[in-house]
């Protein structure tokens, strides 16, 4: 299981702030595909994915127990 966090505009799109899903030993790219199927449009949102609080590359592998966040374009300050 991994934990997924959704923020700001992405949370509006998913309708939920977080969820746990069965996902392990797959890449960030795989997660994008899964997410875009479940939440059409999420991939076109310019969001980035962070794994365990670090921005991740498409080829990074997600392990069971990881915390993953969908980070839409930030607008702090």
């Amino acid at each position, binding site marked *: 299981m991994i934990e997924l*966090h959704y*923020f*700001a*505009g992405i949370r*509006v799109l998913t309708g939920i702030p977080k969820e746990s899903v069965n996902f392990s030993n797959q890449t960030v790219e795989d997660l994008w595909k899964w997410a875009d199927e479940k939440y059409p449009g999420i991939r076109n949102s*310019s969001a980035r994915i*962070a794994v365990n*609080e*670090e*921005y991740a590359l498409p080829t990074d592998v997600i392990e069971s127990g990881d915390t993953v*966040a969908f*980070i*839409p*374009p*930030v*607008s*702090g*300050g």
Partner: protein
Amino acid sequence: MKAFEVVTEPINPQLYADYVLRPEAGAVTLFTGHVREWTQGVRTMYLAYEAYVPMAEKKLAEIGREIEVKWEGTRVAIAHRIGELQISDIAVVIAVSSPHRKTAYEANEYAIERIKEIVPIWKKEIWEDGEEWIGDQKKKPKEEVV
């Protein structure tokens, strides 16, 4: 206080200025970002900020380390507030001390630019006639603008 933090209560900027002050410091720059009433002709009622708190604090600390490496002798503290903020409330404070003034200005401006690039914090603008999470696209409800 922590040197790099996300807070929900009003920010007291002096705390951060005091934190970075040292006998070697000849200059302290303190930047505060405030909720502005008017942006491109649209009146903001208030703002709501949201953060991915643990990652945001980690990234703020990372920016502090970047600065202390890039400009020797500097010391940095940064706080960002989340939740509902009213006009003129402080959203972010950046304090930088340095032996010399030029560095204190440069490093402070660097910090705010980096915050806007990498720190997972989001702003929702609430106008009289709508609201929107602000991101890269900087959309505004054009038809509704008076």
